[in-house]
């Protein structure tokens, strides 16, 4: 049964994955415009020949399905091609931007889970207390307010008015000349604002999910059964409630897997962070097909993988789930 479950998942995975790449490939190539240096002002010194040469060099004059097959063949060999804009291998480009985005998003995700779950349970257990209500309200506000706006406010307060933290960038100008501990401190100072702000929305979301779920679980019949068996509140909480509150956490964590590598364009622009969000955005503007496809493929893969892992996690946390399905 479990084996069939896995097999079916794997099959869907492959079909979906191929489908996504075909659709992405078709859409970006059929969209009007073509790769070129993006210029707002035309400069006559960039001649027509250059544009035609670019087209030939990258085989953009071939029929679309042949271009796609060529792309798949290269991908199988793990060759994602080279960027149109500067000739750099796409893998290298992604490797340069990914660590930053990954670092920020992983730390944020960790913060979200570490703070969000206890906070959610706590607010669920103490719904009548003023503190819990205030936290609840605050979380609702955080969830609703656009992060970029909060980010701008935070920069204005923390960086401009109080001069506590740098407003953007990953490191200070003198970073390279600092001793190792000072370098670490410099990096932390630069990442403090972006990480805090990118955690806020996620924190609000997970706290609300956990809170809601805990409240629902607490009203279930088996909790009364536990109580009547004389179990302590602590045991009930740790052994029975906690496990079921994990479900939404698993879903959200699984679904945020692609989010780990896909940086937010707006966010990375505001904080001047050279991450994958900015790479993707620039690539789209320049019609840098190789980079766009590589990032879309990576995103598709991780989305599907995240979904798959979430399903598996569910199956492990709640055996009813795959029994119902299979």
């Amino acid at each position, binding site marked *: 049964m479990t084996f069939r479950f896995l097999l079916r998942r794997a099959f869907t995975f492959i079909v979906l994955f191929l489908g996504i790449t075909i659709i992405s490939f078709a859409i970006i190539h059929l969209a009007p*415009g073509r790769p*070129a240096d993006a210029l*707002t002002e035309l*400069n006559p010194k960039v001649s027509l020949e250059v544009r035609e040469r670019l087209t030939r060099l990258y085989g953009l004059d071939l029929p679309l399905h042949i271009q796609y097959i060529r792309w798949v063949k290269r991908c199988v060999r793990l060759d994602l091609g080279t960027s149109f804009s500067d*000739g750099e291998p796409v893998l290298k480009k992604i490797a340069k931007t990914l660590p930053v985005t990954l670092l920020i998003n992983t730390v944020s995700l960790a913060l979200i889970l570490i703070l969000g779950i206890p906070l959610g349970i706590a607010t669920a257990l103490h719904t009548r207390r003023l503190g819990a209500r205030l936290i609840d309200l605050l979380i609702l506000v955080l969830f609703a307010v656009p992060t970029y706006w909060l980010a701008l406010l935070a920069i204005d307060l923390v960086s401009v008015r109080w001069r506590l933290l740098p407003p953007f960038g990953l490191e200070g100008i003198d970073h390279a000349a600092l001793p190792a501990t000072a370098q670490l401190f410099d990096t932390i100072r630069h990442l403090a604002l972006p990480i805090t702000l990118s955690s806020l929305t996620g924190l609000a979301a997970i706290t609300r999910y956990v809170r809601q779920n805990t409240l629902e679980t607490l009203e279930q019949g088996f909790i009364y059964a536990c109580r009547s068996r004389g179990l302590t509140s602590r045991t009930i909480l740790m052994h029975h409630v906690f496990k079921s509150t994990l479900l939404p956490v698993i879903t959200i964590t699984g679904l945020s897997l692609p989010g780990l590598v896909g940086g937010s364009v707006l966010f990375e*622009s505001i904080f001047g962070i*050279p991450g994958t969000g900015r790479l993707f955005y620039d690539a789209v503007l320049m019609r840098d097909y190789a980079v766009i496809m590589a990032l879309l493929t990576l995103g598709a893969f991780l989305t599907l993988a995240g979904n798959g892992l979430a399903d598996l996690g569910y199956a492990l946390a709640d055996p009813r789930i795959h029994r119902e399905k299979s």
Partner: protein
Amino acid sequence: MAHSGFLTRIVLKNRLKISGGFFLGLLVLGPTRSCPAAEETRPQQGDTLVLTMPGAPRTYIPILASDTTSASVCGFLFNGLVKYDKDLNITGDLAASWDIEEGGRVLVFHLRRDVRWHDGVPFTADDVRFTYEKLTDPAIRTPYSGDFTQIKDLKALDPWTIRVVYAEPFAPALASWAIGIMPYHILKGVNLNQGHFPDRVIGTGPFCLRSERSQDIVELMRNDDYFEGSPFIDRIAIRIIPDESSVLLGLLTYEVDAASLTPLQYERQTQTLFFQKEYQKFTSPGFGYTYLGYNLDDPRFQDPRVRRAFNLAVDKTAVIRAVLLGHGEVITGPFLPRAWAYDTRVADPGYHPDQARSLLENAGWRDDDRDGWLEKNGREFAFTILLNQGNLQRRQAAEMIQKDLKTVGVRVRLKVLEWNTLLGEFLDKGRFEAVLLGWALGRDPDIFDIWHSSKTRPGEFNFIHFKDPEVDRLLEAGRRTFNQTEREHFYRAVHRILQDQQPTMFLYGTQSLDIVSSRFQNVSSSLIGIGHNMRAWWVPRSRQRHTIRMAP
């Protein structure tokens, strides 16, 4: 335009500069505020200048550098054979002198013998020959090959003499040699298309690249061995900041020392006491102009009276005041107002909607049905202006044109398109009625590619399909002689014809607005921008901010 919306700052703002050493780009009329008196008057070494650019350099190969950042950074790292001096005259850079022979068909460059690459290897004619070979190699993705394909033969007569033979006299040739010369001993056998030096970047310029340490900061160190004398500033650090409002934050938090500002930032957001104390600001005319181009295959625009009427109907001064907050100037022709080719005697006819209306009436456009819109043979005069996304200033200018033309009875619609779409699907294919765009111009007045009737194939730059035999003849003559007086004569004649014919409505030339921390001394204006003497910028020791010594 020089200053534009958020989108544009990231990648679209991307103009070509075939030039060495021009910081932030542009020419300067004068500082709006003078430097504070320094306690120490003798220039001192040290400190770091922190600049910002909207994107990371895509390449350090000068012949591939087509985006603003790459071109600017290459300007610090490399030299051409020639350069423009602060008065916009061509002078020697790596070439000490040159001879123009056989009526301009042959250029002989005598190279400086005291130049060494950043790794200590002497610079010779081999490097020039190598750069030329790469420029004309069809496999290399350089946008600068155009001027060099005119070369018939290039020979090194000895290690310090280069003889370049052109198929016919070609005036823009001399200026084209401002292209950065690349080191043969490092790059031979390297595939330049991958855009990077095999190990570290080796140039001849006043600064050398320290490291490509991240996508975040590009660091340039002083070249102590620079042939014209090393700079005073130890280091230039370029912060990549795509968002223009973040640039302002950088200035406010001392994270950034110098930047280009938008008119709004210049006029409204940097007027506080803080900025007056900490920064000096500079205004400079830019190297581009904005225009409204008509599709001259459209029968309505084939009548010059209609085009002249439109020119009279639009209040350009009002556009400059509202959109650029005054930081621009009305232009009357296809050259930059500071260029010698620009005929200053050609006057703008001014804003005269009444004359415009009667001209349109002469051309047969009347409001017979009294609905406020003009008609001819029962057809209303309505057309669409295309413009590109992400350029707020152009959008606002278009709206003002729309309003002005409405008052003379012409209905204008605006359509904003993504840049590549605008170019590929509409301009190249001739599917447009009018378009609001800008031209970025080089320092040589050769505008053959924009106005010659042979340049109307899809993808070429005469997409408005302007055809005038007299202009063709003048443009051909203008690139065949090196004599500036003769060229001036030809180009000013072109200027007069274009003002009379109005194939496009010349709107305004933009300005470049720069801000520099007031601790930098000796920052001054010139016709090529505030970067003309960057080697002479210095900071009094008491005000130096970055005193940590860096290993090169």
